[in-house]
């Protein structure tokens, strides 16, 4: 009896997590899948008609926004790596006693809500605000130039909002690197650049991988930055889904788009994991 219980114990440990997963993930997924196959409207009610034809339809309708969202998310990921890596490197290797304070400074924006931070950017980038207004007064910008309602504003907003998600995993990975390894590399006649490229960078790959996922996946589905800082030419797939859900109340189309987005993200992430060699990373 007790031997059987002992064999079941690992599975019993899974129960709380499994229940949580079922309740908060599986059930909503199934409901959403069901909705996507329904037809109808608010006034006549929705009926399950197994309407699989909705998937090609929504993909065709929202293809530009899909491509645009993927493009923006890729740019944001690259930019956050470009900005975040030096920050994480400096804090990990040169931080010394100020490490905690520097980390706190990186996380500080998170003390305010996402929307408020984005609205703050709307003020910062305002046509005649203190950034653009000053540049215009100095004659560096034409008076009719605007940054808001351009892709630049949306990408900047996304970068700012997700930068800490890149810095923190990178910091964790870099922190784990034994400085003696770099010392050993330089002892073996490696230049500082070579030491970085062949020791530090490969060892920080788990952090890069985690950070890119944490930045790419939320950015692709984001709609707040596009709504507050963008224009009709920067609408992302998140905006389309939001509009379909809340304004036109076209629940089947919105749910179908949600699933397509999820599938697209899964495919892209799987590809990325393949390229980066995630098998070794997650075991490392």
């Amino acid at each position, binding site marked *: 009896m007790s031997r059987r219980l002992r064999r079941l114990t690992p599975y019993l440990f899974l129960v709380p997590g499994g229940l949580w997963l079922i309740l908060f993930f599986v*059930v909503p997924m*199934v409901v959403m899948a069901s909705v996507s196959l329904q037809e109808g409207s608010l006034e006549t009610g929705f009926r399950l008609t197994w309407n699989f034809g909705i998937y090609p339809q929504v993909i065709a309708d929202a293809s530009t926004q899909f491509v645009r969202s993927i493009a923006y998310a890729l740019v944001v990921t690259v930019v956050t790596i470009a900005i975040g890596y030096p920050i994480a490197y400096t804090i990990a290797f040169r931080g010394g006693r100020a490490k905690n304070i520097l980390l706190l400074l990186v996380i500080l924006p998170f003390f305010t809500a996402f929307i408020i931070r984005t609205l703050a950017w709307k003020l910062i980038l305002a046509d*005649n605000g203190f950034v653009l207004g000053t540049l215009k007064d100095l004659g560096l910008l034409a008076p009719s130039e605007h940054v808001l309602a351009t892709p630049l504003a949306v990408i900047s907003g996304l970068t700012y909002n997700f930068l800490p998600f890149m810095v923190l995993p990178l910091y964790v990975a870099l922190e784990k690197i034994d400085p003696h390894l770099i010392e050993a590399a330089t002892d073996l006649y490696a230049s500082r650049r070579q030491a970085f490229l062949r020791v530090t960078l490969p060892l920080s790959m788990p952090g890069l991988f985690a950070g890119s996922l944490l930045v790419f996946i939320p950015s692709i589905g984001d709609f707040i930055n596009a709504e507050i800082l963008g224009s*009709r*030419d920067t609408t992302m797939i998140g905006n389309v889904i939001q509009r379909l859900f809340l*304004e036109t109340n076209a629940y089947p189309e919105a749910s179908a788009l949600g699933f397509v987005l999820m599938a697209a993200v899964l495919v892209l992430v799987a590809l990325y994991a393949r390229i980066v060699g995630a098998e070794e990373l997650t075991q490392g």
Partner: protein
Amino acid sequence: MLELTGLRRLAALGSVAVLAIGCGIAGQSPSTVPSGTGPAASAAATPTGGATGTPSGSATPGASGTPGASGTPTASETAAEPPTPAPSLSGEVVWGNWPLYIDIDEETGGYPTLEAFTAQTGVQVTYREDINDNAEFFGRIQPDLAAGNPIGYDVITPSDWMVARMIRLGYLQPLDKSLLPNFEANVQELFRDPWYDPGNVYSIPWQAGIVGIAYNPTLTGREITTFDDLLDPAFAGRVGMFSEMIDTMSLTLLSLGVEPEQATTEDVQAAHDKLLTAAQAGQFRAFYGNDYYDALAAGDLALTMAWSGDVSQMQLYDNPNVQFVVPESGGLLFVDNMVLPNNVEHLADAYALMDYWYTLDAAVPLTEYIGYFSPVAGVREQVEADALAERKADHPIRADRLDQIARDSFPDEAQLANVHNYKNLTEEEERMWNELFNEIVGG
């Protein structure tokens, strides 16, 4: 290893089966999707207060459709219900309204008219400026409305076409006019029996206004007179339009010489084409809800579609340069209305609040601040009298302001002639118009 492969295959097949069965089960839920599954939802759809006639109480589980689909109540059906006895005041009421729609004390940040109401009746008003866009707001409250749950507001102030839609869906309770004596006595004839709610069964007007164009002459460099000025390439990237489909499409239809109430499919298609060309050329900075106000006041926009009262307030408080104009091609008359959803927590207080606004003590200070077209009779005359009093008391600035409000907030005969009504869209039409509009807005 072989054992595991078999197990994996079984797991895969099993999860597909579960998904399919789950879809089927979830698809059997009687009400609209977001309100959840099965009997729990329809059991919760109980009517409250005087709304014994609304169909939400008669929804049966297993029926495919929203509670409203089992037959929208006609005016005669619900008017035949005997008036329920007035419930007693509970001391609080929650009101969801648009921004820039109430007077504010600049120093304390309080609302003088609401404070006067509290002093008079003892009812605390929780005032929430939560409505930015009709469809957006509707999207938020719809699941609760469909399930018959309280939506978190006792009184809400949707616009005319949204009231029409909510009536069609059966989400509103008919008003007990015996509890609204001031409305009956003081409402202007123009506002009685509107197109979206014949007989004022479900709604009473809050304020009206005109959808027109607001512009900043220092930024446009010239006077703006008509809708096509919004499409002038000279202003590319600095023009605002409304995200509210019915406003933007109707104004565009007028610019094509089409009366919105008689618009056909071809007319709407033409309006769509006109707007799409401009949108693709980058003419519009963005499609706004009420947040166009901040963009216009800050100077991000040179000209934009606007609501008349907002501009009066902007001239007085935020940016004195801005002008409002009813386009030569035609403006739109909109009426925002106070309505009661089916499930209201503080019913007597809600009625007290709604009726309070039809007294001159409340309506006059309100108009003198927000500058919208009041549905209450006698307000304009009172504002003019107040202007005269201020002039006699040697406050010329205040007198000028009040004169301007008396002039601009109440359209004269000529202006009213150039102001048109919206079309009462059927569900099919609304979907078609929305699809066309989404293409313009969504890029």
